[in-house]
């Protein structure tokens, strides 16, 4: 399902310039980071040196550096600087695996296989990312009744028409037991509406996970 599709990893607004975060798609560990010019990157979350997660590291300008030994990588994933050997011209073979990235409709997307046409643009208001201890199928089955609304569309982007507006939901399958939903509202939304939706999302997670634990 995700091999040749764009998969959302995060709400754009939650990855600020100069920050990084970890994300998992069907078991694949990914670092998503935003460089000083505002461009997002999605790479394998592993430093080639000692296997440390790059998402534990830090962004310096247009490079991301590993927390362990400070090895720095440029926007193409190529290692450019090794602090322990400052004079060394770093071999071209030291690089992090990179994947295609897209930013649209308020989310950051990764393509782990063949690169499809860019994801559709849309005017949205970001709500939140919701991390659920439930498999994808159970999440989708529970959304209409649990959140309240009519579900349409297909993974990785579904819509839910609710009494508080239309949610555009990016679906990130984490692994066999966990799913993330990146929740946005189509068009503008007032703070009161967003607060009501945020409260509803808390309740949805609780009911879903309670049902899962009882099953």
């Amino acid at each position, binding site marked *: 399902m995700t091999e040749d599709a764009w998969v959302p990893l*995060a*709400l754009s607004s*939650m990855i*600020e310039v*100069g*920050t990084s*975060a*970890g*994300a*998992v798609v069907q078991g694949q560990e990914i670092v998503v980071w935003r460089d000083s010019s505002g461009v997002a990157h999605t790479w394998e979350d592993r430093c080639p040196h000692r296997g440390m997660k790059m*998402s*534990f590291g*830090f962004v310096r300008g247009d490079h991301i550096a590993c*927390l362990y030994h400070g090895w720095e990588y440029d926007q193409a994933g190529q290692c450019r600087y090794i602090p322990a050997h400052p004079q060394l011209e770093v071999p071209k073979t030291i690089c992090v695996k990179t994947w295609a990235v897209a930013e649209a409709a308020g989310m950051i997307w990764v393509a782990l296989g063949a690169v499809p046409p860019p994801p559709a643009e849309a005017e949205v208001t970001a709500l*939140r*990312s919701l*991390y659920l201890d439930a498999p994808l199928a159970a999440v989708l089955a529970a959304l209409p009744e649990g959140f309240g609304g009519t579900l349409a569309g297909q993974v990785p982007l579904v819509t839910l028409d609710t009494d508080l507006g239309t949610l555009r939901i990016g679906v990130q399958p984490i692994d066999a037991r966990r799913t*993330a939903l990146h929740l946005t509202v189509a068009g503008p939304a007032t*703070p009161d509406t*967003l*607060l009501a939706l*945020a*409260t509803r999302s*808390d309740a949805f997670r609780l009911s879903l996970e309670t049902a899962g634990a009882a099953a």
Partner: protein
Amino acid sequence: MTAPILYNYDLDENCYRVRLVASCLGVALTLHGIDMYPGREHLGAAMRALNPAGRLPVLQDGDLLLTQTEAILMHLAEAHAPTTPLLPQDAATRARMMDWLAFCARDLGVAAQARTCAMLDAPGDAQALRASARACLRLMEDHMVKQGIRGCGFFAGPAATLADLALFPAFALSRDFNVDHDEFPALRLWARRVRRLPGFITMPGIPDYH
């Protein structure tokens, strides 16, 4: 005035809470090192005489002896930096701060236990403690999602209070008990704001960057 004495262990997260708040308040502390691990000095007779519960931190400020983290934080602010913006004067904001300080003292204790169980051989059910600590971090995430919608960057309102500094270590150290930050985007942004507060300091396990 002589500086308050903190009986301190660098890797203890509650001692870090005191050092962090003191630093952000601009209050100098005299640190008295206690070999908590592996020496178990906090459980010895000398420290039991100061705190029969056998726990750190302990703060000695003149005749005043304090053993509860949140009381120590309040005392440092009220006695040594009463005009600090970290201690809101408006009653509602102060009450919200106290609400989260109480959360820190009562609920979030499981995070410190999960960490000492994972790292320092403390007794406990590591899996259960980890699950409880994750549940606490989720409550914090849900709150900061709503604070973000309200245009507030911190737990008690638009400005940082003692509550933010008291809550920060549990999130910043959660990888020590194997809870990653992936699932907490609102807390990641908040932690970044905390890191930028004047006087912010780290402890071992919390990288010094940003």
